[in-house]
């Protein structure tokens, strides 16, 4: 039974040492360790939640990007089409305008040609008149000089006219 009788000294020192250890470890070891573990667990849970959220956001963003891209493509083709149309329109307009201008120029030119032709004809007519008058004068003067000479002269004149 001696073995089962607790010694006072051992009991006392064990109690003292245990309480000191409990106090020191409680303050300096368990507190930082347990709070760090809690904090880390919370941190990990938060990180996982954040990662999940970010992933969702990313997929959402990707979908949006996809949509934007499709829209942009559509807009681009639309713009290209519009540009082509505009180009065609401008070219056609230019062509039309050029044609109109050319026509106007041609018409003007014809008109001018006609006018000048008329002027020239008038001048020719006047000249011919003058010539005729002159010829008539000469004939009259020659007639007045000699009959036969008159005839030869007339012949010469008529040939002259023919040459003209």
């Amino acid at each position: 039974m001696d073995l089962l009788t607790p010694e006072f000294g051992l009991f006392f020192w064990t109690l003292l040492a245990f309480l000191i250890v409990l106090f020191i470890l409680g303050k300096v070891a368990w507190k930082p360790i347990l709070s760090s573990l809690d904090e880390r667990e919370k941190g990990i849970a938060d990180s996982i939640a954040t990662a999940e959220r970010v992933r969702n956001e990313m997929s959402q963003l990707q979908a949006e990007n996809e949509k934007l891209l499709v829209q942009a493509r559509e807009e681009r083709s639309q713009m290209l089409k519009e540009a082509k149309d505009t180009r065609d329109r401008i070219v056609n307009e230019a062509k039309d305008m050029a044609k109109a201008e050319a026509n106007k120029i041609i018409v003007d030119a014809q008109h001018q040609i006609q006018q000048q032709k008329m002027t020239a004809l008038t001048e020719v007519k006047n000249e011919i008149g003058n010539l005729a008058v002159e010829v008539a004068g000469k004939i009259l003067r020659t007639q007045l000089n000699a009959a036969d000479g008159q005839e030869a002269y007339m012949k010469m004149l008529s040939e002259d006219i023919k040459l003209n």
Partner: protein
Amino acid sequence: MSYKRLVSLLVLTFGLFGASFFAAAQGEGNKSNTPNEPATAAEAKPVKEEHKLDVAKVIFGHIADAHEWHLFSIKHEGGEDTHVSIPLPVIVYHPTNGFSMFSSSNFGEAHKNAAGLEVTESYKGYHIEKGMMKEHIIADDGAKIYDLSITKNITSMIISVVILLWVMLSVGKKYSKNGAMKAPSGFQNFLEVVVIFIRDEVAKPCLGSKYKTYLPLLLTVFFFIWINNLLGLLPGGANFTGNIAVTACLAILSFIVMMAKSRKHFWSHLLNPPGVPGWMKPMLVLIEVASLFIKPMALMIRLFANIMAGHIVILALISIVFIFAAINTTVGAGFVPVSLAFTIFMFFLELLVGAIQAFIFANLTAVFIGQAIEEPHDAHHEHEHNIDIVM
């Protein structure tokens, strides 16, 4: 395969070494004793008695507390052995003389006195009386004294406390320095697993939402017991946790916490058990009140008995060699490998037992506190569950 071969090689090597060493020692002992006997018969007689193998004395000498840390003994030609031991401080409180403190080496060797008791010389009015299992400091005047000596067990405990504080403080510092979100490294890894195990497997299931208040106590109990169990396994180590004073101290502490934190619900359940016929109540209350005190007693005895039994078995297995050798040297030598194999097995078992008993002590402390602080709701179910664990 190669591992097995290595183990058997080790056993063989140690076995042969042990056998040759033992045979030499035995031979020398025989040689030294026989010629001396006729010459100085009076002196040689107690010497021979001392040399006789007393396994019980050897084992209890190892597991009991002592006022010096005995390392080994050297046998001498003359028969008087030299005991090499580290003297430890003796602190004694005498009701009339007050405190006195001196080295245990002042007591000297113990000898059998006229009454057949092993006593040392007296110093400053005290002497040590060695009983069958324990030694006590006795005042020469027979007064009731208080022995507060730093004994072998207390020295061992101080070493363990220093190691524990050093390890825990360095790890705690690491946590404070690195912050929570840095991955643990080195010893921190190992410790973290154990701390989380105690928190998640012991504190949370037993104590519910209030586990944070009791976690420091449970962790300290667990690590304090564990490290002392391990230190006790070292060769020459003290049997600290296998001492009833130590386990009583820890059990009383957990009992005090349990009582201090107990709630009305616990007491009403205990003194007026619900759903029981009136005539059975007195009997049940008696059992419940008894169980209140049996709980810390169970804590105390479980740890004490487990660790002490482990020490006794290891020592007994080693002693088998010497028991057989006392009959025949060759038989003793032949038994060395068997004994060594068993001892190694026991050491591994004790390593396991050391951790398991620390865990059980912490776990049962948590269970008992959990019973005392439990809230009225779903109490019945919880109660039954806890009883299952205790059984």
